[in-house]
């Protein structure tokens, strides 16, 4: 399945892009995150939440959508 991944804030700085599309055959969000970790090791040290089709999901959620977003917290004000 072709999945588009959007990166925000510090996450996008690590990946050096705001989004990318990739072919992925796993079934769980956790598998996708493992794959992203293998590509961008530094992300293991970053906090982020995951949204699928614009809804926050957990690692155990099944991949059903075409759009995943990785969202870090911001402290600034």
């Amino acid at each position: 399945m072709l999945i588009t991944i959007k990166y925000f804030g510090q996450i996008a700085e690590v990946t050096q892009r705001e989004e990318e599309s990739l072919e992925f055959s796993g079934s769980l969000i956790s598998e996708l995150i493992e794959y992203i970790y293998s590509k961008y090791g530094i992300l293991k040290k970053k906090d982020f939440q995951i949204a699928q089709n614009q809804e926050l999901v957990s690692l155990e959620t099944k991949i059903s959508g075409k759009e995943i977003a990785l969202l870090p917290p911001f402290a600034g004000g």
Partner: protein
Amino acid sequence: MNRYNRHIILSEIGQEGQDKISKAKVLVIGAGGLGCPVLQYLTAAGIGTLGIVDFDVVELSNLQRQVLFGTSSLGENKASAAKKRLEDLNDSISIVAYPEKLTHKNAVDLFNQYDIIVDGSDNFATRYLVNDATVITNKPLVFGSIYKFEGQVSVFNYNNGPSYRCLFPTPPEKGTVPNCSEIGVLGVLPGIIGSMQANEVLKIILGLGQPLSGKLLCYNALNNQSITLKINKSASEIETVLDKKDSFHSQDVEEICDIEIDTISITEVINQTNIQIIDVRETHETPKVDSLDVTYMPLSVLESQLDKINPEKTKAIFCQSGIRSKKAVSMLKAFEIKNCYSLIEGASEINEFCQSADKLKIK
């Protein structure tokens, strides 16, 4: 001509809506990049009572984005300087400045006096404190935060909706997320995000449109893209906060503090003239350290005795064992008090050291 004419002639607001605005009480945490536009628009809109919490002072590097201040406010407390400017903008509302730090001790009492809380703070410790205190007091929280060219906006704890912890359950590990002062921020970004927060406040007061409850709006100033993500409520996260309700005011500061504590040994402290030695044990605790010039600031009342601190001197802080002294250092650091060290030795060891040092002198 009525000051609020342009509101009143909107059929969606009218005199009735304007009356709601003038009865509303809104508390803004932080008069910085986000707080300034929030305060400016809410003052102009005629919010009845507007509270401003900020312990910090205006610095030159703030003026790039904190639009309520000018060069004449440099060095002034931000809450007081903002109040002064805002009273000129609208003298028919009540503006209350709290030139102090928001703490677990004062948050709940303060929040209880207002209808809506706006978070314009600049660190995770305060953001989680604000969230938890709004959960406990059951007040809607209009949230905004920024990072370089991006911003997040949401409304938490509104009509039984999710809280900030339902989105990000725990603060990130120390030092992993830089703030504006470390990494920079586009000056206009907090202007945009803060204006969105002011908009959410007015929508809540007026019952207009759909407040961003259960949703996180993410805005990118560089590509003008914004997406809105759905957040689900986590009953267990909210429950965990409510469970701490009774002990909230005395909650451990260390838990939310993410700074390294510098330590110092009594051998480096003794006979130094430029050192202030501080005992943070409670008044009944013994043994006293009588042989040294000690300032007593019990941890339980530390925050109310900051005037005892000598800003010119290095602070060496001790307690019974070295745990509370570290806590005290982290608290003082949070108040931006510099040159604070936790003494490795506890009171008994300090006394022993002083006695043996005295014996050496006699010989």
